[in-house]
């Protein structure tokens, strides 16, 4: 139960009483004409702005707080507002008051480790967000061209298949798309967990996980997973569960973007995950139809593309120059003194497809907006390839330039191996009838696919990925059978991490694998393989 701080009471009282009788408050009001389905039509409010927050002081919700709403439609003789709370408290004739502020939320470093709703109110029972906060508007124009920079630094996801084949850079927007139950959220969570290693560096990545229209239990699970892996302390969860009203679900990603922008504009790196935008589009469709906006394809309103494009456009790599960054457009006044260049906001939007149909309206829209997509396939998932990333259809349009040097070199060979394997895969059943070259390519492909499998919540640091890729590219794994690959991976990584601790750290920092070290890695790999083969023959 919340309590008033006694020491503040007298201060507030004194301040209020001293200026009690000489000032009258001026505000604008309107009257509720009709209400229903979370929408209210209001007469009056003639000076109200689109997107402004309004308050209904007569309509008190279950907690005794006045219901709040946001102005979405300005019409000739009335104003259409969406209600954030329950509409059952609102009655015809109730007063609606302008707040004169565009829908916004309070953001500060205190939001890290917290679960908040899309209006920034904490919902994890730990009281209000602590520390100094800045009011960030939900809707804000994306930074202009001159304040941006091409993507150049990697954002390591810790997932082998992504970091090697579909690399993501800081400031990029990479779509995670797939059917239900294909591990979309797991990829997102793994990526957040992997940012733990950046926290000690000079460029930590802060994370925001936006849950839109998900089950409350799922959100609790995500929170628990993050907490258990020590990732919650640098993560904010913005929760608009399935039980939240449609307007709440529709603004949740914007709240996530606003929190991300706080970090981005103060010169830090942030990662925001919108899980998922198909549910947000559905919430927006609901609100739009109730506001009688005309429906278009699949009954989505005409501006559903703009809804997603303006959201994702806010992900950016800001130019690494404080002077230029300080001129940035549409910055809230209170943030201006703290503006810094060199920050970034990476967005990983999630889209759920129905029966693998990527040509539906929302998926095609978001694919065209983002800088690439990670496509997750049900068949792969069911055949045990997890993460079920379809490397053939997944691309990263800009991430390549952000990949670390050695990784880029090694990934080239690997891409080739995989492409050849996919071409020949259909012939695999002919087995020994094939010529030796084809057999070798098939063998290599099978092992590469096996190597890319990874358990959830176990992201790999980049240096370990490099070590593994090196062993595979040298063709050393061809001696092992497919089911021995995971044993090899474990033993090999353990050995190199212990044996070359300092060198590995160096590789992680610079991203360069020297020839000397590469040879040493080859030696270790060979010994590990010999050991595995020896123990196998012993058992036999």
């Amino acid at each position, binding site marked *: 139960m919340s309590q*008033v701080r006694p020491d503040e009471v007298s201060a507030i009282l004194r301040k209020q009483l001293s200026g009690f009788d000489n000032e009258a408050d001026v505000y*604008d009001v309107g009257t509720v004409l009709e209400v229903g389905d979370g929408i209210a039509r209001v007469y009056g409010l003639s000076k109200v702005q689109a997107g402004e927050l309004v308050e209904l002081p007569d309509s008190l919700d279950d907690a005794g707080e006045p219901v709040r709403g946001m102005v979405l439609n300005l019409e000739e003789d009335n104003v259409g507002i969406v209600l954030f709370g329950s509409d059952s408290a609102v009655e015809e004739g109730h007063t609606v008051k302008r707040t004169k502020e565009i829908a916004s939320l309070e953001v500060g470093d205190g939001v890290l480790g917290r679960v908040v709703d899309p209006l920034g109110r904490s919902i994890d029972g730990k*009281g209000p967000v602590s520390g100094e906060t800045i009011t960030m508007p939900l809707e804000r124009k994306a930074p202009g061209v001159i304040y941006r920079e091409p993507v150049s630094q990697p954002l390591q996801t810790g997932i082998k298949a992504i970091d090697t084949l579909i690399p993501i850079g800081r400031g990029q927007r990479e779509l995670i798309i797939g059917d239900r139950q294909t591990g979309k959220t797991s990829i997102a969570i793994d990526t957040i967990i992997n940012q733990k290693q950046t926290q000690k560096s000079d460029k930590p990545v802060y994370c925001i996980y936006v849950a839109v229209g998900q089950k409350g239990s799922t959100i609790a699970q995500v929170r628990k997973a993050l907490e258990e892996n020590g990732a919650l302390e640098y993560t904010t969860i913005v929760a608009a569960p399935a039980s939240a009203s449609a307007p709440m679900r529709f603004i949740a990603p914007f709240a996530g973007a606003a929190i991300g922008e706080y970090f981005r504009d103060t010169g830090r790196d942030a990662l925001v995950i919108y899980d998922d935008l198909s549910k947000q589009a559905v919430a927006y469709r609901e609100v739009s139809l109730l506001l009688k906006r005309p429906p278009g394809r699949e009954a989505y309103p005409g501006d559903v593309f703009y809804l997603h494009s303006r959201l994702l456009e806010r992900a950016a790599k800001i130019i690494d120059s404080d002077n230029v960054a300080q001129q940035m457009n549409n910055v809230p006044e209170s943030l201006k003194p703290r503006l810094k260049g060199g920050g970034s906001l990476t967005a990983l939007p999630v889209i759920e497809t129905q029966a693998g149909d990527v040509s539906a309206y929302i998926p095609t829209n978001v694919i065209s907006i983002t800088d690439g997509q990670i496509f997750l396939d049900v068949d792969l998932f069911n055949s045990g390839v997890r993460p079920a990333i379809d490397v053939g259809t997944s691309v990263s349009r800009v991430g390549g330039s952000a990949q670390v040097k050695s990784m880029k070199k090694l990934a080239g060979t690997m891409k080739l191996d995989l492409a050849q394997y996919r071409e020949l895969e259909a012939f695999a059943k002919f087995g020994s009838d094939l010529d030796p070259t084809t057999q070798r390519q098939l063998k290599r492909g099978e092992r590469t696919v096996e190597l890319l499998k990874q358990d959830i919540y176990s992201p790999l640091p980049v240096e370990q990925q490099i070590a593994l890729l090196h062993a595979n590219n040298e063709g050393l794994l061809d001696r092992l059978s497919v089911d021995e690959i995971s044993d090899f991976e474990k033993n090999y990584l353990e050995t190199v991490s212990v044996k070359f601790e300092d060198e590995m750290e160096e590789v992680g920092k610079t991203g360069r694998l020297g020839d000397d070290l590469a040879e040493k890695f080859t030696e270790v790999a060979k010994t590990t393989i010999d050991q595995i083969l020896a123990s196998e023959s012993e058992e036999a």
Partner: protein
Amino acid sequence: MQISKAARRYATALLQLAIERDEVQVILNDVQFIRNTLQDSRDLTLFLRSPIINRDDKHAVLEKLFREEVQELTYLFLKLMARKDRENLLEQIVEAFVDKYNEYAGIIKIDAYVAQDLSDDQATELKNALEKETQKKVDLKIKKDTSLKGGLAVRIKDTVIDGTVKHKINQLESLFSESTV
């Protein structure tokens, strides 16, 4: 009351015609007479609104009620409405007409909310102050509401100038709740 677009158009037409013929005052009297009749008789309002009742009946009733009481122009206007099947809008049209007239004559309607009855002097003083502030003739309506506890609030169109004790207390309450732990 929400006034429909059609009602506003009828009212505008009537006012413009009245201005042209220089009969604004008399027409205004007629309209106010109709308005008062409608306000006094809920039955008449419901009768006009009802979609079940034949329009000839509505026409006949309007004719009987107002034929002798109103000017030629107002009567013609009522007839036009009957012919266009707009009797149901009469209530809104008279409201819209009064609004339009007020706009034309530079009159502004202001509601004042007080906790205790004002003396006549205080009321005039308030009215004068408001007229000075808005630069318009003020049609002041004073409403008493004891729940305000003290002070005074004035609503000019959509803007409220609130100096009531109730509002101050509410502000204080929200200040306290903001500083809760």
